[in-house]
């Protein structure tokens, strides 16, 4: 992907061959989920619930 990034980047990858989403917050916290709405809610709640990996 192109373009300049700032420090606050959220990334969600749909894991190939599965229905699973894998999210990485800009703070480094990670989570897997099967629902993009749930994933964004967790992601944007940063820093709440971002102190450890939750699956």
């Amino acid at each position, binding site marked *: *992907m*192109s*373009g*300049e*990034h*700032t*420090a*606050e*980047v*959220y*990334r*969600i*990858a*749909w*894991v*190939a061959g599965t*229905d699973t*989403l894998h999210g990485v917050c*800009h703070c480094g916290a990670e989570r897997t989920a*099967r*629902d*993009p*709405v*749930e*994933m*964004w*809610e967790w992601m*944007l709640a940063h820093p709440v619930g971002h102190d450890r990996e939750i699956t």
Partner: protein
Amino acid sequence: MTGTTGQISRTAFARNQWYVAAYGREIGRELLARTILNEPIVFYRTQDGGEAVALADRCVHRRYPLSAGRLDGDTLVCGYHGFTYDTTGTCVSVPGQKRVPRTARVRSYPVVEQDSLVWVWIGDPESADPDAVPRAAHLADPAWRTVGGMETVECDYRLLVDNLLDLSHETYLHGGYIGTPEVAETPIVTEVDEGAGTVRVSRHMDDAACPPFYARSTGIEGRITRWQDIEYHAPCLYLLHSRIAPRGVLPEPDGSDPNAFHVEITYAVTPSTDRRVYDFWCVSRDFAQDDEDVTAFLHDLNHTVVMQDVDALDLLQRSLDTEPEGYQELSINIDTGGLAARRILTRLAAEGEPQPAHAPAAAR
């Protein structure tokens, strides 16, 4: 986003943002009327400098559309009673009297012309930063051959953003044109850059059928490696970096990519009213630049694709308008990018809300 299901919220515009009002070629010595974020605006170009001018399209006198008037040099003369405005919107002449009322002026809007596009700023003019206009440099770069057009869609502009952020619909709505089964089947990667206000959605297909759009324009026979990298600069500019190559052909280790075909698909999504959006579209290619058959083919086929979207979104909006309050949607993995875009648009709209002022006195 309040749960697994939900619904699109009430239309709210991000006012303190730049929006594409027109292609530069559309603005000249003929008056051009466009309604942007519910504000009627008239555009024209000055005689000598060729600067694009944007003024409120309502005469201060009796609200007659100034776009129905005429130019006299660089001034705009109302076609009803002759009130005449300069390029700043100041009324410089009224009929039958020497004194021009001090309040006789219409709003002028900040304008930037860049990359063949004319951008306008609707919100607080003090916040208008020309350097914040996102770039689409390929549109004015001779290394790229560009075709394009503009359609109006009778829908909430966010339905068009939804459409563009989730390209899995190509398989179903545009099958036989640009869609193949692999588009809907291939997982995506979504990145949101909060600071930059951008959403990126990437879909890389290693082994895909070649749709007619690319087969005929590139001459590739057989299966392809097809990459789609979306870069959405909310709220208006959408770039789709499309890479097409014979199956298995990848960029060189040094990053060069001489054996692939590159197409930049550009959209500008400009809300006109709560239920109308201007859909500016361009297709730029770095191959067969001088082949007029390819130029005509890409223009005509992409126009067909755009009209398929127009018809679908018109239908979707009419359907949504019959839904009872509180209707529900369901989002799945393909919607990850679209959900991110909706949220950024909501944030940008809230940031552009005017600050609360004293309650106005009751009209008498």
